[in-house]
């Protein structure tokens, strides 16, 4: 019975879980070690993926299928929209709706995928077995595994997808633009107190993001600090009592749909109603699909965070 409910949880939580891995990450962009400059030769292209495998292509990929929404977003942002041959059900709002779907991001229909004749498939790096990767490689389709946990991963992924799609220049300028915007935001909050901020990854059970995740790094860029710097999990389960004890100044609440209604609903629940942030109106509903973007969109996410954490700076 427990197993059954776990299975159910898996199904219903699939989209959230898919977004969540994305939130596992740490140090911010600026200080990461420089990647070796991609040297695209005319002959062959190669890049090492996050599983440590080297993926080699004879030429820049022209028929890419991305199973990871963050990679899809990145590819579109570097101008490779025309090189995409398919999409998953989770690629929403990035302008790829007309492409044929291959189903789920983690359990795509393999034959649909193969039938679209991709010359590169970009997918999640999964812990342990990855049957999708194994089957595709058997058939001779290159599979590039990505894992975006922190902002360093985001920049690294932008760079490598640029190499694989033959768009290193666009990738470099996209990365530079994101770095610039993050630096601007960081500068805008300089000298202001970092406000204790709690991001609600899930409310039942209560979960937040670990301090090494992109989400928390962006929160720090935006002039906040996580209420749970001691979190070790991914996601981190948090007890309501501890949250009430720590009284975050600001609460970020990723929602899909009516944010105001969601805040009203939460504010009457036990535990939640003890949080001062509800009385001081410092609970901010943010669109969930923006919050967990793990591509060049992190710049907008950071701005959204900054405007929530330091509303006095908003719309400047």
């Amino acid at each position, binding site marked *: *019975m*427990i*197993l059954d409910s*776990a*299975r159910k*949880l*898996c*199904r219903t939580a699939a989209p959230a*879980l*898919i977004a*969540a*891995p994305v939130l*596992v990450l740490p140090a911010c962009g600026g200080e990461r070690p420089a990647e070796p400059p991609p040297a695209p030769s005319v002959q062959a292209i190669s890049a090492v993926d996050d*599983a440590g495998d080297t993926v080699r292509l004879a030429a820049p990929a022209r028929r890419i299928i991305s199973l990871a929404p963050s990679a899809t977003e990145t590819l579109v942002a570097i101008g490779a929209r025309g090189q995409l041959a398919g999409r998953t*059900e989770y690629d929403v709002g990035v302008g790829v709706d007309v492409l*044929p*779907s*291959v*189903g*789920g991001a*983690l*359990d*795509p*229909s*393999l*034959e*649909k995928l*193969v*039938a679209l*004749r991709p010359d590169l498939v970009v997918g*999640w*790096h*999964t*812990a*342990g*077995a*990855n*049957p*999708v990767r*194994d*089957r595709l490689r*058997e*058939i*001779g389709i290159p599979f590039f595994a990505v*894992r975006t946990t922190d902002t360093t991963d985001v920049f690294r992924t932008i760079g490598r997808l640029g190499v694989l799609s033959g768009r290193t220049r666009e990738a470099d300028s996209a990365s530079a633009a994101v770095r610039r915007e993050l630096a601007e935001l960081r500068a805008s909050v300089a000298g202001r107190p970092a406000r204790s901020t709690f991001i609600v990854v899930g409310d039942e059970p209560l979960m937040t993001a670990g301090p090494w995740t992109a989400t928390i790094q962006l929160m720090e860029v935006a002039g906040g600090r996580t209420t749970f710097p001691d979190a070790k*999990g*991914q*996601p981190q*389960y948090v007890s309501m009592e501890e949250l009430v004890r720590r009284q975050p100044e600001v609460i970020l609440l990723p929602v899909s749909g009516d944010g105001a209604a969601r805040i009203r609903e939460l504010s009457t629940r036990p535990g939640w109603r003890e949080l001062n942030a509800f009385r001081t109106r410092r609970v901010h509903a943010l669109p969930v699909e923006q919050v967990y973007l793990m591509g060049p969109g992190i710049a907008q996410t950071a701005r959204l965070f900054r405007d929530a954490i330091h509303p006095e700076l908003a719309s400047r």
Partner: protein
Amino acid sequence: MKPALRLALLAALCAGALLLSVRLGAVRLGVREVLDALRGAGDPTTVAIVQRLRVPRSLLAALVGGALAASGAVFQALLRNPLAEPYVLGVSGGAAVGAVAAIVFGAGASSAGVGLAAFAGAAIAIVVVLRMAASVGPTLDTRILLLSGVVAGAFFNACILLVLTFADTESFRSALFWMMGSFSGATWREIVLLAGLAGPALAVLFALARPLNLLAVGEETAQYLGVRTERVKLAAYGTASLLTASAVAVSGVIGFVGLVIPHIVRMTWGADHRFLIPASVLLGATFLVLADSLARTVAAPTELPIGVVTAFVGVPFFLWILRRRGA
């Protein structure tokens, strides 16, 4: 109809299901294209889809369906309990603990590694449950065995939840997907391994059909009639459990087949195990092949979890059989 004729009919049904399942899929292919691809002719992409994806998947579904149904039939006979099914003695729980632990703690474990861990977990569960039951009283009491299985199952579920609590999001996802069961990763290697194990195991179960017939009536009766009950029970439990363990190791936990298929066969054609076991194998294989075809095509390209289809199709059918029998 003679039993041999019935079995031939069921075999034909199973073959038909296999052919249909190779014809159907998320990608529309004509009969001609499929036939060409089976011979390795025609478009290489189509050949890859048919030979590397569809055929292995259908064959694996057939093997798992047959194994689970046979195992279910044997458990129902041994435990003399209509609710018995292949997982009732904690095999699936043990397998899941093994697989989940491999996924969560064994960073980078391959598909084969996870399968092996699942099999090891199942084997440990079988031994633990049997020993637990055997330690009470001079003979293996089926009621005690059933209780041991249920208790062990609950304990394994607790272990899974404990491991998952400390899993990161990535492993959590992989572990849950494993537990839902799927044939999408089917490989020829898995098919060969499962066939290699299931073949001898099924042969043993077929050979035990007569003593099982007597055991299903009652242990005392069986003993009076010369059955060495303890040995038969042990052999049947061990074999059926191993059969289940190997099926779970390659495909995850797929419910319902092992419970309902033997009942359907029994209600339709009677409870002679000489017929019941082989018929369950064939019908179980047919059922799971068709269920997997539906899972792949109904909402294509999204794949439904196979357990959803087995229950959605199986439950109404089962109810219909029950009512027809009652009338």
